[in-house]
């Protein structure tokens, strides 16, 4: 008798637990789903009170308009090129740097790590102002070079911070063994260290891709016309008055799609990287 009562209590508890989980999922998913649904409606539905949606006739009107806009296509292309380049470069630079910081006994290492911490804590605006003037002096404003370089400023420090731990956790004997077997210094790096630190390097790549794709401040400062990126294009739908919600919701969905896909595919590495470096997001 008492046993079955305990079981009932537990079952009721479970039931409420799942209700709570459902509530969490709804809270997390519904704002974004609402925008996805809106982006497939007709213009007239967007201006109805109370809100009205149709699930039977999904409309591609807003997306057609978006792809018809030359500026959107340009922004999309720029985002893909700039973010890919920055991600690849940062992965290479961070692999070399993280290896040196993580495994070599070097003087001045703590100074370097302090510098990295400064970049993390200092408000980007503090050095974006003179950085912008520098880029202007070099004629790098509104160019891919300028954008990629500026992205690297923010991506490399975080990447080194994450990879340092990964390289550091590789047993040092492995490197010594490789050296004794006649591996050159670069050989040790490419054949031993790099394969073992691969999960970390992948995590850095994913983080930097997501962070680069999501950033607004850098393209807002560095791009003017030729190299505007998707976030700058999307941010133009903001403001307080006369907002074109058809364009806003469809551009929101399209800009979010790549990072969501990457995050879902690489969720394991992401969670690992998140906890390894306690990174910005």
């Amino acid at each position: 008798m008492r046993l079955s009562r305990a079981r009932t209590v537990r079952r009721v508890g479970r039931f409420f637990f799942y209700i709570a989980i459902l509530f969490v999922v709804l809270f997390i998913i519904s704002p974004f789903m609402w925008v996805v649904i809106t982006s497939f409606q007709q213009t007239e539905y967007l201006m109805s009170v109370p809100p009205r949606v149709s699930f039977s006739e999904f409309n591609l009107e807003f997306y057609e308009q978006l792809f018809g806009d030359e500026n959107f296509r340009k922004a999309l292309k720029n985002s893909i090129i700039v973010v890919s380049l920055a991600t690849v470069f940062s992965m290479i630079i961070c692999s070399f740097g993280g290896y040196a910081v993580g495994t070599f006994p070097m003087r001045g290492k703590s100074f370097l790590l302090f510098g990295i911490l400064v970049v993390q804590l200092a408000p980007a605006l503090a050095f974006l102002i003179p950085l912008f003037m520098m880029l202007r002096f070099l004629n790098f404003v509104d160019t891919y070079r300028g954008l990629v370089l500026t992205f690297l400023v923010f991506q490399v420090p975080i990447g080194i911070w994450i990879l340092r731990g990964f390289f550091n956790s590789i047993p040092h004997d492995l490197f010594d063994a490789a050296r004794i077997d006649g591996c050159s210094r670069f050989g040790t790096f490419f054949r031993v260290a790099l394969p073992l630190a691969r999960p970390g390097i992948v995590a850095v790549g994913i983080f930097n891709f997501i962070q680069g794709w999501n950033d607004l401040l850098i393209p807002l400062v560095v791009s003017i016309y030729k190299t505007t990126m998707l976030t700058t294009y999307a941010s133009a739908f903001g403001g307080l008055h006369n907002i074109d919600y058809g364009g806003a919701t469809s551009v929101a969905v399209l800009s979010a799609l790549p990072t969501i896909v990457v995050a879902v595919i690489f969720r394991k590495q992401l969670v690992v990287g998140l906890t390894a470096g306690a990174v910005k997001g």
Partner: protein
Amino acid sequence: MRKLLDRFEMMSISKFGLILLSPTILILLVLVGFPIVYSIYLSFFDLILSSPGKLNFVGLKNYVDILQNPVFLNSLWKTAWFTFSFLFGTTVTGMVIALMLNMRFIGKSVVITILLIPWAIPRVVNALIWKWIYDGNYGVLNAIFVRLGIIDQYKFWFGESPLISITLISVAYAWKMIPFVALLVLAALQTIPRELYEAAKVDGANGWTRFWKVTVPQLKYPLIIILILQTTRAIKVFDLIAVLTRGGPGDRTMVTYYYVYKIAFDYLNVSAGAAAAYVVTAIIVLFALLYYVLLRGGED
């Protein structure tokens, strides 16, 4: 080529390390170090890009001006409320979600995957989502509130008091960052040794006591890291403001970081912008130190 490779073999390990680190050091020195030094230098001058002229040394004038600027001072209060509400909301909700995820249940990996979505989307998209929800004419928040009888007619939310506007922006940002807190806390929870709970159970501690005496102390370090990251993040809120309100209407939602951006890149007053940016830096450093002291305090 052969010769070059041989040279790498001969040099000391420190030298080789420096070569591997040279791109990083170059970036840090040229693109971070130099700009920081240069902007500190500029903050003592009167450089305005829109009106070129002779550069005059003005001493601390830019700092004095910014600390007397009413828009800036008001923005500090708004930033403070934004930061506090954001920290409170994300930490409490994130911890509750993490504690739930730390239990065993069906569909857990699906829930974790869904949690990654708000975290992964661009902040600009985050802003557009909530812009549409908060819209004064057709927004779903208005519809829900009218249906629930909380308000009788649609409201233009950002026209309300700054307290309401800022809170709404804070909710929007919290929605995006709660998963980050939840996942970090979850990871920390999973490192707490089971034996600690067993021991507490043996000593007769109930669930509530176990939470406060075992879980919370073990979470102290990760929580402080989270607080540091989230505080800097809240103070540096930019994209959300840029898309949702641009600081308006009037200056009602003008938070500090967005105002600094406006000074530097809209008014092109580089020197004043740099000075304001360093005031913000000082505030962030102060918070970091405060958390650091809190962290150290527990270890003694």
